[in-house]
């Protein structure tokens, strides 16, 4: 497969600090890529380099087989939906959406038809003559999407597009973004710091930290078997067990020798993570995790989020059904399955 978007060895330095440090990534044409990371992780810089707004200090960007590294934003087959939408305030909705077509010298009747179709696609049919100031946040977001998609870019770049919306609207826009991506069949690259949003949208999650890619892959894999401790922590909570490698198949922990395949050298230390939903509050799992006392039980609607600590001081996070009504101070017997032990 020739990747649709291919970045190789991208580095961007500002003085002494590296906003991007040797970043490489290859994604297919139908992918919904989410760049996920805390602020300052380099995700926005990466998006900006792909869009042509920031010139990399080193590295290459290839889109649909064409090296675009030296091209400016106007010459690239990408368009961007900006964080605060960056709509043209002095133009009507249809003028905003039709701007890219006008620059491409698309004749008026054709332009009008395509603008109408684009507005229909984002659910704003009939809004063409309105001014930007008459629109709500969600509607502006849709205009920005229509304006960027109408020129049929190879890649649509989205810079924290849902950041300014309230929770309900954000959920709704997530669904619409997914549908849009499927319907247009284009590659979307979306930047966010919200891990839930990333999982809801992505076919590929790219976890970034300090200018590097920590992990990249399908959300299920990145969540269940993260490549690094940072990726594990950023994707969600887990219990962390300290372990020492004994052999290629075994690690030693305070709960005995556990069957964990690893490529780390014998004698080296590593961390085993267990996601909360994989810890059982009984001995039904093949791997016993000893006993722990509940220090806190927080009701979260569908489940209790339970924090527990063993006598040796090992902390656990697990989920219990509301029917279990866990009480602070109660002692649980914990276990899990071998497959749920993930070395990072």
């Amino acid at each position: 497969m020739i990747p649709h978007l291919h970045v190789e060895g991208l580095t961007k330095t500002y003085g002494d600090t590296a906003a991007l440090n040797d970043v490489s990534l290859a994604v297919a044409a139908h992918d919904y890529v989410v760049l996920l990371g805390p602020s300052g992780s380099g995700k926005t810089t990466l998006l900006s380099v792909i869009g042509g707004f920031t010139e990399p200090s080193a590295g290459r960007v290839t889109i649909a087989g064409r090296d675009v590294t030296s091209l400016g934003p106007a010459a690239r087959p990408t368009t961007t939906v900006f964080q605060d939408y960056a709509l043209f305030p002095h133009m009507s909705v249809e003028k905003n959406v039709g701007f890219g077509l006008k620059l491409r010298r698309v004749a008026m009747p054709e332009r009008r038809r395509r603008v109408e179709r684009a507005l229909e696609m984002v659910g704003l049919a009939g809004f063409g003559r309105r001014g930007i100031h008459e629109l709500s946040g969600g509607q502006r977001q849709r205009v920005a999407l229509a304006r960027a998609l109408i020129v049929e870019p190879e890649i649509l770049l989205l810079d924290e597009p849902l950041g300014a919306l309230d929770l309900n609207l954000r959920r709704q826009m997530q669904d619409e973004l997914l549908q849009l991506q499927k319907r247009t069949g284009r590659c979307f690259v979306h930047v966010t710091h919200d891990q839930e949003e990333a999982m809801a949208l992505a076919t590929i999650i790219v976890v970034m930290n300090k200018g590097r890619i920590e992990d990249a892959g399908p959300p299920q894999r990145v969540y269940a078997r993260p490549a690094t401790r940072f990726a594990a922590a950023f994707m969600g909570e887990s219990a962390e067990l300290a372990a020492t490698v004994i052999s290629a198949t075994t690690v030693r922990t305070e709960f005995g020798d556990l069957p964990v395949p690893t490529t780390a050298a014998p004698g080296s230390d590593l961390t085993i993570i267990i996601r909360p939903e994989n810890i059982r509050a009984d001995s039904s799992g093949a791997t016993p995790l000893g006993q722990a006392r509940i220090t806190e039980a927080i009701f979260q609607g569908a489940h209790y989020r339970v924090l527990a600590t063993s006598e040796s001081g090992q902390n656990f996070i697990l989920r219990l059904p509301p029917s279990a009504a866990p009480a602070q101070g109660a002692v649980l017997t914990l276990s899990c399955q071998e497959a749920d032990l993930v070395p990072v």
Partner: protein
Amino acid sequence: MKTRIAAYGYMALCYGFIFLPVGVLVLFSFQSGNLPVPPFNGPSLRWYEAAFSDDRLVSAFANSLLVGGFSSALSVLLGFLAAYGMARYDFPCKRLIEILIILPLAVSYLLVGMGLLVSASALGFGPSLVTVIIGHVVINMPLAFAICLAQLGEHQRKIEYAARDLGASTARILFSITAPMIAPALIAAFCLCFTLSWDEFLIAFLNTRFDVTLPVVIWSLLRGGLNPETNAAGAFIFLFSAGLILLVEVFLLRKRNA
């Protein structure tokens, strides 16, 4: 209560001091007698009629419009472009260049006028309205520059990025995105430059001979003695400038409330 009365009295005195001469000028432009001095007889539009049928005044009025229009348009265009470069690009000695652009504001009009006259004649051009236009651009462009620069913020930068992203050239962005976005400031800058050009005497006086502007004609009328016709012309000029300033206020205020 007492301080309040004192405060209002003080205010009345201040405004009286500022506006009484203008008020008197306007009042005696409606004089029906031959001298713009008390007692006031009238009102009569006799002197307005005289002013509007005075060829010198009318052609000076046209010249002033011409100089004001051209010099203000040029000032705003150059100031806008300079401000855009200053706001959007990084280059060495940026601060120094900004100071150099602003500096003409501090140079006396007398120096600008004399300098222009000397330079123009050294280059073989006699005094003309073109020289006056150049002089007014010199004194007004820094003002237009400062007004535009204050309006070009980071918010518009994102919007300009969006336009570039969709394929727009820099020239296109400047004239179909940036300029319309700061249109109120551009119009305000134009009106201010126009008002200053409309009133400017020294540069216009030094650099014109036969085609003169309104302030120069009025000055020569005054040398011939007091005459309500001068009052009428002055009142007319005043109303014109006041109208422009009002426009500036409207545009700037509308911008602030938006």
